[in-house]
């Protein structure tokens, strides 16, 4: 970084050499070796099971860009970590190993059957299976399950994981966690009873129809108290599943080997096909794609889709190895309704009309790599979703060419009209937040900026880094102080019900001063009431009716503007067997089912 202080020169040639090299690259758009792919076919794992097989052996090789947030089941929040943890952690109940939407059904895992629900939905009782063991051969007891769950109460040490169980079982926070527990066996939590080693009873202060969903998350995994190393447990979680962690090096990867104490008879869920499972980390998405296409690895663990270059190479040359997976993610824009002029519903509706949805879709990668245009918040796989489109988005975007331009012009006229009703006939200025660790969000914000500019809404894109989002979008006062009216964001369900997807986003009682997710600060009595009603329901179909009403209400109030039901392009190696996209795991393959051809 310093100016040159060297000598005089006579120089011409260098530039020419370089320019020549440039032109050579520019000339062709990259076409390489054309080896015959032997994939199971385009979308084989979204339509059914690709390469169904029961053959065991081989090494299943994952590659990933991002490290695990933790291997400690009570501390995981990354979706891929939840899917992956089933290799070494079991729960009372888990999601059915079935393709697509059928995976949302809960089936018994450590327990012999789903819960016996009594006392008006306030008591859940499970009996444990016979033959379930830890990696040292000792039996898994109901006390181990209780101890594992209790760890979530140690908020300072076991941080990072979802808090649902804690909030539902002990809403007042009376218990202080097993590390501060004075009782001898450290099992002081009153809400869980373990009358014997095979029985576990949960007593809820208030019914919650999704309680079993919460137990199916990795936070419901057993932990053997004598093997618990507190915050360090992540480095060597003690296995209850068919594989155990041989090594885990943060930033590098992990190796799992067979847990020979695990008995297949005790586990109806996991076929445990490969002999070994490895995870290799590589922080360059393009390199990841190259290695996958080359055949060095089988699956991209986080399954967030291939990069632009990898995608086009895969689709053009190896289409049979590609699945166009529907994730349960919804991409949307949040309106901070306490920030002017978004306190006025007409100004919000103006944005709905002026937005060019197709442009947002194209900029995020088009219909295959970005997803389908969305009109409501709930993902399609969750009960309560229906086609509801009060702003005529689908009608507009189904047109092409000149017709599309006309439809957009008509929508803009409606936007102008809304602006008039809002008292801002000439438009207004506003800021939109986008996270710069999500380049697609920044690009989408720019696309929105371009579209809204057409009706006089001048957007300024404020990049924030993902790390500070909790203290910016998560803080209503900061949003207001910095005049941040819109937030470009996305959301996926923690568990596949209306509560698991959108309660933190829209229930007024979830507004917090830091770490807030109800960015719109919507506190609508009807919505809050509908949530209460849905939670009391143990019948998912009836709960779904309430969620449907909430879902319509959100769009009517125009407090969140969904624009994409996310899809992505996922690579499936030719070696991979038993692969299918599971809605319960956000469209990822159900990792516990995978096998490889040796």
């Amino acid at each position: 970084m310093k100016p040159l202080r060297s000598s005089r020169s006579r120089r011409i040639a260098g530039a020419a050499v370089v320019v020549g090299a440039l032109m050579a690259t520019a000339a062709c758009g990259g076409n390489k070796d054309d080896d015959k792919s032997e994939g199971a076919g385009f979308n084989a794992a979204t339509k059914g099971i690709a390469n169904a097989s029961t053959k065991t052996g081989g090494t299943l090789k994952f590659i990933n860009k991002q490290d695990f947030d933790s291997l400690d089941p009570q501390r995981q929040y990354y979706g891929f970590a939840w899917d992956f943890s089933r290799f070494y952690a079991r729960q009372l109940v888990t999601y059915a190993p079935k393709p697509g939407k059928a995976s949302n059904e809960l089936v018994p895992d450590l327990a012999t059957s789903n819960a016996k629900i009594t006392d008006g939905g306030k008591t859940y009782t499970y009996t444990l299976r016979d033959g379930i063991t830890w990696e040292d051969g000792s039996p898994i007891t109901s006390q181990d399950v209780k101890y594992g769950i209790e760890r979530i109460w140690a908020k300072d040490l076991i941080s990072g994981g979802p808090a649902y169980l804690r909030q539902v079982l002990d809403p007042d926070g009376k218990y202080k966690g097993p590390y501060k527990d004075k009782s001898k066996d450290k099992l002081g939590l009153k809400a869980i009873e373990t009358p014997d080693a095979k029985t576990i009873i949960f007593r809820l202060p208030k019914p919650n129809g999704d309680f079993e969903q919460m137990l199916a998350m990795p936070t419901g995994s057993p932990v053997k108290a004598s093997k618990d190393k507190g915050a360090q447990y992540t480095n060597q979680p003690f296995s209850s599943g068919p594989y155990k962690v041989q090594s885990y090096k943060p930033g590098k990867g992990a190796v799992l080997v067979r847990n020979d104490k695990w008995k297949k008879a005790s586990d109806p869920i996991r076929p445990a096909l490969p002999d070994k499972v490895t995870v290799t980390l590589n922080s360059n998405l393009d390199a990841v794609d190259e290695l996958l296409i080359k055949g060095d690895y089988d699956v991209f663990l986080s399954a967030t889709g291939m990069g632009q270059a990898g995608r086009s190479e895969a689709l053009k040359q190896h289409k049979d190895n590609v699945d166009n997976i529907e994730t349960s993610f919804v991409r949307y824009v949040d309106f901070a309704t306490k920030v002017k002029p978004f306190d006025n519903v007409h100004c919000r509706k103006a944005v709905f009309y002026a937005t060019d949805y197709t442009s947002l879709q194209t900029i995020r990668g088009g219909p295959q790599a970005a997803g389908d245009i969305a009109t409501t918040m709930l993902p399609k796989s969750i009960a309560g979703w229906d086609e509801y489109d009060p702003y005529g988005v689908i009608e507009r975007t189904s047109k092409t060419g000149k017709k599309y331009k006309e439809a957009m012009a008509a929508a803009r006229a409606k936007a102008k009209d809304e602006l008039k009703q809002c008292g801002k006939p000439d438009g207004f200025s506003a800021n939109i937040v986008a996270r710069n660790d999500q380049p697609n969000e920044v690009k989408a914000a720019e696309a929105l900026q371009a579209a809204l500019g057409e009706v006089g809404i001048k957007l300024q894109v404020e990049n924030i880094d993902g790390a500070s989002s909790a203290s910016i979008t998560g803080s209503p006062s900061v949003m207001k102080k910095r005049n941040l009216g819109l937030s470009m964001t996305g959301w996926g369900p923690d568990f596949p019900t209306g509560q698991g997807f959108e309660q933190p986003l829209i229930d007024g009682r979830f507004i917090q001063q830091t770490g807030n997710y109800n960015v719109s600060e919507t506190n609508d009595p009807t919505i809050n009431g509908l949530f209460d009603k849905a939670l009391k329901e143990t019948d998912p179909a009836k709960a779904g009716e309430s969620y449907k009403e909430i879902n319509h209400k959100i769009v009517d109030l125009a407090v969140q503007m969904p624009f994409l039901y996310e899809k992505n392009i996922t690579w499936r190696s030719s070696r991979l067997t038993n692969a299918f996209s599971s809605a319960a795991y956000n469209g990822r393959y159900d990792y516990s089912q995978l096998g490889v051809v040796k």
Partner: protein
Amino acid sequence: MTAPVHGTSTDAEPAAPVDVAADVVKASVEGRSLRQIAWMRLKRDKLALAGGAVVLLLVLVAVFAPLIVSLLGHPPNEFHQEEIDPLFGTPKGSWGGISSDFLFGVEPSNGRDVFSRIVYGARISLLVAFLAAVVAVVLGTVFGVIAGYFGGWVDTVISRVMDMLLAFPQLLFIISLVSVLPNDLLGLSGSGVRIAILVSVIGFFGWPYVGRIVRGQTLSLREKEYVEAARSLGAGRRYILFRELLPNLVAPITVYATLMIPTNILTEAALSFLGAGVKPPTASWGQMLSDAVGTYKDDPMFMIIPGLAIFITVLAFNLFGDGVRDALDPKGTR
């Protein structure tokens, strides 16, 4: 360089001032002004002149960016997704979508006019580079003169600070700083803040280079006869500093400033490449290259064009800067 130059040293540096319009033959006998000599040398250096011409052209492009774009391009932030293949996000046309409508093609996925963005990017690049050079020159001159002229502990302190700054892991430091600074600062917002930050930070880390040279020159000038003479005649400190020393520092400072600009352009582009530059959608070359990282395999033109823009600009400044230095410093190593 209109100030009279007091050059009475033993070297070939001429006594001044001399009428610029003086007859060349006569001047060659009587001694020419530094400026004349420099200009003559520069005129003979074809490459430096070419570099200078490109620099001039770039400055004009940056100044008249809106006009150029309105004639030859589309607004820099306007989307043209009809030029994009929706399935792959790459331009429909070959060679990055270059056409008579889009001279340098279109940007992948959003179809923005690359030509317009290059033209507008020149503004940011040159603006930041020039202003940062100014900051560095002002700071460097002030501290360099102070250190050189006063000597003693003042010199020690300033010199130590300069050494330390030179040895600092600068790039890391700058990105750290940019990443923690808030978006609104001192009443500025948006790109204004970033430009201000970039200018001050790049300038701040640049001043020690200028400072060192100025200090050295001041040290040697301080002992020259004409300064001694002025001092013995009872001239005040201020008079000596501004009338005797500074005019003689103009030449080395000019050379240094010209050579600093290309470095600053590279630094600004590097920072933008790492995401610490001006904020989108404001066009900047480094940002374009960083966007090209994801698409260069399918659309190499989008990488090559901003890369070439940086290369040509920096090369032109270097050629010109070298020429100016050689012209001003006849003893310079050739």
